[in-house]
């Protein structure tokens, strides 16, 4: 089953979003990480770490500024066997929609199509 990855500049945004979508779409695997060294920020290492733990194709969500750049670099360096997609959809609404679609069995391509219609 497709998994979800969330990278935010804030630890609370990451864990809060994870909490929200896990409650609305139970059984969906959500990897979430935010903040660097107790402060605000993202780095490639934390994304690498999450990617090393995914066990299926994964849709990734990001928030502001350099989070996209870091996410793109981590995905480009990813050497695992799963397909990693980056969604340019709002982090809360997008990951929520993806989680619900995953839970009812929609395939990844269709979910990505729906996410592409969400304006960030």
């Amino acid at each position: 089953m497709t998994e979800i990855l969330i990278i935010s500049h804030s630890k609370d945004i990451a864990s809060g979003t994870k909490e929200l979508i896990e409650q609305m779409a139970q059984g969906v695997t959500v990897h979430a990480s935010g903040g660097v060294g107790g402060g605000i920020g993202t780095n490639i290492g934390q994304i690498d770490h999450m990617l090393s733990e995914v066990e299926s194709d994964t849709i990734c969500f990001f928030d502001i500024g350099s989070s996209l750049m870091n996410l793109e670099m981590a995905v480009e360096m990813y050497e695992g066997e799963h397909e990693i997609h980056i969604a340019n959809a709002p982090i809360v609404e997008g990951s929520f929609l993806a989680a619900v679609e995953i839970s009812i069995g929609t395939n990844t391509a269709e979910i990505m199509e729906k996410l592409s219609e969400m304006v960030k």
Partner: protein
Amino acid sequence: MNNTMLLQRLHKLQETFTEKETELTALDREIGDGDHGVNMKRGFNAVKEKVTESSTQEILKQTGMALMGSIGGASGPLYGFSFVKMSEAAKDEIDVENLRELLEIFAETVSSKGKVSGGEKTMYDVISRAKEVLGEDGALKLEDLQKLADDTKDMIATKGRAAYFKEKSKGTVDPGAQSAVYLLSAFTLEEEA
């Protein structure tokens, strides 16, 4: 330039960025958040500490990983990832032709990942034009690179945090362009850099 010389040069950047910390911080205070000096120093401290004698390709890759893991903001990942990409094309002995190729990859990586195209007062303005000042003998002179950085002085920032300063960003050399000068000068194929 073989692996031993490359490693020496990259290790020496630790001294360079320690020496230039105040200068980079002062530039970044003008048009950014003032952390570029300490960031570059931290990055090359990590390089000095973690990157050891190995093949040319592995040295470049390890340098990239050390920079990505230790510098915050956008500059660390951009420099770091560029080193990783360059490592894939580096020859054991970097000659002029190979250096030109590496500069091309450096510029392409910063452009695609940093979403810049030039004239936006960024490190890209130095990196993308470094090939113009690369001599036929492979010399990449600090003073020539410096001219490229000086050209960013009159530009108005439209990317990164400096963009918030708009017109006020005029009159200051971009800190990323300045750090790119020091970093690129380590690649000169002249014997004494």
